[in-house]
């Protein structure tokens, strides 16, 4: 009975992969746990109902109307307690959002913060306002509008702004430990190297060792901390960030591919080509021609 009206996982994933984006309504009685377990996408959920969220090393019980932001760096799970559990979910990939212009508020937002609290308790007024945004997104998603993705990014930004205007619900036990601090310093340092604005200032730190030196910690400690907090190795985070930046540079600049490679710390174009191909499955030039 639970499987009724639900697209299969592969169908669902295919749509996400092709578009980088998906928005849908959670109806009462549907099995939504599966969707909450997807960890390779950012998500924003508006939910009504009781549940327990395990977020990083904390557990928080939520009751009533809640807005939740999930990102791929922080592990979390979701247990639904009440029968009546409804709301909306929006999922999107990192490259979907980053195709947009960089904005300070997004960097500051609960989506990107490590150690923040991305759970917001809403009043009825706030809930209905946010619900209308989701409804508009669903309505727009059904259209064939040429710049639909731009419009969707706008709606996502609106959701983020709504959250930024609120205070997070800090009603749970939070333990800030050394690992979390180290991980958050690492992400700060990683993010501070971007955006790359000119070829004269290539990326400085590219390996976990270089980051560790800069942060004055042992590389083992850095790796352990990042892995503990995010569940992924340091190198994976660095690689993901480099690829995101590479795609942005390929699309938004007229630098040659060799120059982009150099700016990202690759001495020879072939290194950059191989690296890009290994991580994305395509060569840099194909990203450029796709969008040209």
């Amino acid at each position, binding site marked *: 009975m639970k499987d009724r009206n639900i697209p299969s996982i592969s169908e669902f994933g295919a749509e996400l992969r092709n578009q980088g984006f998906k928005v849908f309504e959670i109806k009462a009685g549907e099995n939504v746990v599966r969707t909450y377990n997807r960890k390779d996408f950012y998500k924003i959920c508006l939910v009504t109902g009781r549940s327990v969220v395990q977020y990083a090393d904390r557990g928080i019980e939520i009751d009533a109307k809640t807005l939740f932001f999930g990102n791929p760096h922080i592990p979390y799970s979701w247990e639904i307690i009440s029968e009546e559990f409804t709301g909306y979910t929006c999922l999107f990939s990192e490259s979907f959002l980053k195709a947009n212009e960089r*904005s300070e508020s997004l960097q500051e937002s609960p989506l990107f913060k490590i150690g923040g609290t991305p759970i917001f308790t809403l009043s009825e007024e706030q809930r209905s306002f946010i619900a209308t945004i989701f409804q508009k997104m669903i309505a727009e998603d059904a*259209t064939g509008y040429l710049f639909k993705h731009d419009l969707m990014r706008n709606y996502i930004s609106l959701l983020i*702004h709504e959250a930024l205007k609120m205070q997070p619900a800090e009603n749970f036990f939070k333990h800030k430990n050394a690992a979390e601090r180290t991980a958050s310093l690492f992400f700060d340092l990683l993010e501070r190297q971007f955006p790359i604005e000119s070829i004269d200032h290539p990326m400085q730190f590219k390996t976990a060792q270089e980051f560790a030196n800069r942060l004055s910690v042992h590389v083992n400690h850095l790796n352990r901390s990042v892995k503990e907090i995010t569940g992924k190795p340091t190198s994976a985070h660095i690689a993901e960030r480099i690829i995101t930046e590479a795609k942005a540079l390929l699309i938004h600049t007229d630098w040659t591919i060799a120059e982009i490679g150099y700016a990202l710390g690759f001495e020879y174009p072939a290194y950059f080509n191989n690296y890009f191909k290994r991580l994305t499955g395509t060569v840099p030039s194909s990203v450029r021609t796709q969008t040209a």
Partner: protein
Amino acid sequence: MRNCNASVPENVGNTKQKLFKVYKTGLGLDIQPTYTRRDFAKIYLITGKAHICARGKAIHTNEPILLFEPLAPYSLNEVQGTDLSFACLFSKDLLQSELCSNTYHKLMASAAKSGPIFFRLDNKQNNFIAGVFEQIILEQDTSYLFSHELFCNYMNLILHEVLKKTTANITGYQPFHLN
């Protein structure tokens, strides 16, 4: 009808500190006081009967239109006899910021001409855009740190709403000009 909205000039003054300002009038709108602000692009939502002149040319309209007055040194003289209108000023800096410029240029490219540009709206669009302007009015006096980014997001919603019609090539909804 001239200068019937006395509060416009002082509202406009606020844009010196701010990057944008939206105001609403139920009486009819005289654009004259605002047109010296060449560093601000303007958008007007005009509902109902209006009579718009610029450089001695005039347009009479009886349906909702959205009017863009870009940064170019070009000014409208007046709009008369409208039922409900919104006017929105936003600064050159904001317009050139990455957040806003993308969609704005797409829309302006569809018009392919400089100077004031008119877009006819259907009722649904009119209601939607009026709703967004109301929302901006609610937000603009709060002290929210990223209010200008939020404004750009709302602005983009309006631009996309118009762009949807122009990209779909629906006859009767293509942009038009005064001259």
